[in-house]
């Protein structure tokens, strides 16, 4: 019998009982290594499990991930959970269902082909005989490995997948249930706060711990190198003690940050290693119209609404951690490394936090909590970051620059395409490098070195260069990554990573070439695409937005204040296809009036879940493009509050319309990151359409717009 290879997540965690437990009371417990970060993944995975097991969606209970029992699926990131985690769970559930069918066949003395399953009850056709999963669970041994001999359902057999089932988590969230790690309440729990240095490389000269120890409720003052923290009985007491501790600490600092207003030049001046990502044809063809342009994005904060939080308990050499980490297994490794203990002395459990959108402070908080809990053996310590630290000390999405050169002939054929980018490695997640990738580890008396970062991991696409190689068919192209070393500003992965700026640059530049040649920018795209799915989303977005009905599409068709623009990408050239049209009112300030997106993410598990992710992705990208920029002086990060780092508000959020092109026979593809780049380019293209002005450095602030308008 031939079998398909198992999905990688299942090969690594092949025992079926690691994934599914059929309880005798009619509840199906499903374990997954993927964690809920607001994207709705646990609901999508529950839907997949219910589908393959043929049970009601309401029977599924998704068990939060922990390092003790859950499958180790690495990191929940990169819009890969539906692709990878969903694929593994689907196969595991198909095999579990088959195991129960075999057991029922034995009990009913029937052939498997005489049986069918309805909500966990296995019926024998043309008879009243039946057996339920719950009755059979004692005699079905799931402590065996998946073997790939059973195929999951075909597209035409699906009954639940493809339906907009409601999310499992929302009722509790709107009821105000204690669903977040912030809400944990353990016996004897104390409250902790950490006092961070005022800048990345500040050195602690003096601090007055004695005075803090006498403050009301204070149970411990912790100092290890330049890691400072307090533990107190009540939360407000910990806050007050931390404030006093911060006030009394004396630091000296260095002016070692670059000029925040000249980041592109700074990046281009750094030592770098060139890597040719694509080279074909005879680059540097002269065309009728040669164009060059440079695009950049600033450092961007994840800017979670809720500050990072974790709870830890240290007792008799055993360490327990509850945290919002996207990577509980790797984070455990780095905590163990930092403390010099064996990983199996540590249990890390995932509890939801506020949305993170990439690698934020979630993992750092886990180590912080452990370091404080060590000072009060036996007492759980609930550690919460301040909002200011959340904005200033979390890893930032790295600043990047892209320089484009190209040429287009009079017939609208792009004859030359050159894309050169500068970026430091994006990946700084825990568990991947020699030195721990946790903030406090670098601040200890015996500090670990901050690791250099990683650009590529096995099995996933390199991060900086994501989307750099164009999906368009060009006869001549050269794409080069200038890989920088780690920057003096702390960075980590942010939603859409390198794909955001690469797509922004490509999709703006397509419009710039179209303008130079006097051709329609959407037609220019279509004329250089052979991928039918790409063509379909672009046409759908054009039709639904009304862009198709406009008389001029040459990038200057607006009326002097209102304009429309399109951006397109297939995220990382292997995930979802997305085309976005936005309409703007543009002047010195830009107002996004509406956004219309068309996406193709293969087989859609939950259409409303896809829409929700796409809508949110659009709003977040609008926020990045119009408002967001981490700022610093030569010493300190200065964006520390919502006043310094504004994000899009209710009054500014555009109505968003999302249409889905479902492909039931194609693999499911993640959508969380698909629209960010297209949105950014669509806004810039719409602004140009409206007023003939283009600002290429993000964000498109009032100052930059005014300068560009004055230059025009």
């Amino acid at each position, binding site marked *: 019998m031939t079998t398909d290879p198992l999905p990688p997540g299942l090969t690594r965690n092949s025992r079926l009982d690691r994934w599914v437990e059929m309880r005798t009371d009619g509840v199906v417990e499903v374990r997954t290594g993927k964690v809920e970060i607001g994207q709705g993944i646990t609901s999508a995975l529950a839907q997949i499990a219910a589908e393959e097991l043929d049970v009601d969606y309401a029977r599924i209970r998704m068990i939060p991930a922990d390092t003790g029992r859950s499958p180790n699926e690495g990191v929940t990131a990169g819009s890969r959970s539906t692709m990878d985690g969903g694929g593994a769970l689907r196969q595991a559930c198909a095999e579990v269902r088959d195991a129960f069918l075999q057991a029922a066949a034995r009990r009913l003395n029937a052939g498997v082909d005489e049986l069918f399953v309805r909500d966990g009850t296995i019926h024998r056709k043309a008879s009243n005989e039946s057996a339920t999963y719950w009755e059979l669970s004692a005699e079905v041994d799931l402590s065996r490995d998946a073997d790939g001999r059973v195929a999951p359902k075909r597209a035409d057999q699906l009954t639940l997948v493809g339906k907009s089932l409601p999310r499992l988590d929302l009722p509790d*969230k709107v009821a*105000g249930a204690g669903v977040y790690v*912030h809400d944990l309440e353990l016996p004897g729990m104390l409250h902790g706060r950490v006092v961070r240095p005022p800048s990345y490389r500040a050195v602690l000269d003096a601090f007055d711990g004695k005075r803090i120890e006498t403050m009301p409720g204070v149970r411990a003052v912790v100092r290890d190198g330049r890691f400072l923290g307090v533990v107190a009985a009540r939360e407000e007491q910990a806050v007050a003690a931390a404030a006093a501790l911060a006030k009394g600490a004396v630091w000296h600092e260095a002016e070692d940050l670059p000029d925040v207003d000249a980041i592109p030049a700074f990046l281009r001046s750094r030592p770098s290693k060139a890597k040719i990502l694509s080279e074909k044809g005879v680059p540097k063809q002269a065309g009728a119209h040669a164009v060059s342009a440079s695009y950049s994005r600033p450092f961007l904060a994840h800017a979670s609404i809720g*500050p990072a939080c974790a709870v830890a308990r240290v007792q008799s050499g055993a360490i327990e951690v509850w945290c919002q980490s996207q990577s509980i297994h790797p984070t455990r490794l780095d905590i163990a490394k930092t403390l010099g203990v064996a990983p199996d002395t540590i249990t890390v459990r995932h509890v*939801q936090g506020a949305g993170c959108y990439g690698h934020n402070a979630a993992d750092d908080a886990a180590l912080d909590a452990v370091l404080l809990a060590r000072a009060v053996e036996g007492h759980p310590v609930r550690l919460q970051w301040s909002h200011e630290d959340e904005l200033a000390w979390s890893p930032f999405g790295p600043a990047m620059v892209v320089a484009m050169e190209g040429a287009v002939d009079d017939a609208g054929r792009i004859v030359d395409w050159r894309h050169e980018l500068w970026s430091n490695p994006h990946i700084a997640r825990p568990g991947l490098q020699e030195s721990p990738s946790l903030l406090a580890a670098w601040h200890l008396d015996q500090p670990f070195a901050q690791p250099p970062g990683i650009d590529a991991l096995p099995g996933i696409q390199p991060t900086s260069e994501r989307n750099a190689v164009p999906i368009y068919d060009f006869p001549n192209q050269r794409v080069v990554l200038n890989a920088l070393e780690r920057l003096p500003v702390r960075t980590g992965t942010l939603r859409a990573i390198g794909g955001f700026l690469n797509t922004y640059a490509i999709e703006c530049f397509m419009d710039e070439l179209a303008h130079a040649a006097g051709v329609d920018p959407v037609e220019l795209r279509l004329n250089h695409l052979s991928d039918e799915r790409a063509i379909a989303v672009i046409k759908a977005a054009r039709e639904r937005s009304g862009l198709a009905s406009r008389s001029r599409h040459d990038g200057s068709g607006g009326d002097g204040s209102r304009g429309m623009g399109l951006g397109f990408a297939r995220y990382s050239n292997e995930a979802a296809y997305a085309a976005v049209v936005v309409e703007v009112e543009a002047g010195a300030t830009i107002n996004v009036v509406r956004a219309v997106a068309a996406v193709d993410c293969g087989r859609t598990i939950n259409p409303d879940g896809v829409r*929700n992710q796409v*809508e949110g992705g659009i709003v977040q990208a609008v*926020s990045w493009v119009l408002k967001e920029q981490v700022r610093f002086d030569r010493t300190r990060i200065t964006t520390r509050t919502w006043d310094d780092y504004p994000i899009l508000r209710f009054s500014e959020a555009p109505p968003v319309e999302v249409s889905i092109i479902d492909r039931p026979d194609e693999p499911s593809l993640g959508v969380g990151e698909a629209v960010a780049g297209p949105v950014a380019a669509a806004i810039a293209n719409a602004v140009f359409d409206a007023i003939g002005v283009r600002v290429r450095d993000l964000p498109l602030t009032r100052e930059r717009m005014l300068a560009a308008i004055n230059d025009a």
Partner: protein
Amino acid sequence: MTQSIELNINGARSVVTADPGTPLIYVLRNDLKLKGTRFGCGAGVCGCCTVLLDGRGIQSCNTPVSAAQGREITTIEGLGGKAGTHPLQQAFVDEQAGQCGYCLTGVVMGAAALLGRNPSPTEAEIRSELDIHLCRCGAYDRILRAIRRASEMISKRGE
């Protein structure tokens, strides 16, 4: 100095021992175990910690507990009253308005304050009233739909 403080929360009397300057949110979450009020910024500018004080929305992260004495405090846990679920909460589920959900209880309380004094607000009034509330997941569109739906539910019920 800690002292005994009497509070009227969700229609019931509670007595807590705390410093009167303690931000109300810590008393709600830690003393009364009402965890549905979320801590966001600590400066009263993100809306996560919104509760009702005599029906008006206030930010509990920068309101001292002493300021709530003698007034009616309503948190998300008490919003639905005897029915258990407020039309706003039902509407948020119906519209699937949320992702990570961290901002939602604050948004619901802010919207409840608005609908309490104006059961049929215009879209502009909703946007303006809720402008203090930040949603990083970007669920604004759905949240607006949910509030409009709740407004209709309440209006119908009142007829």
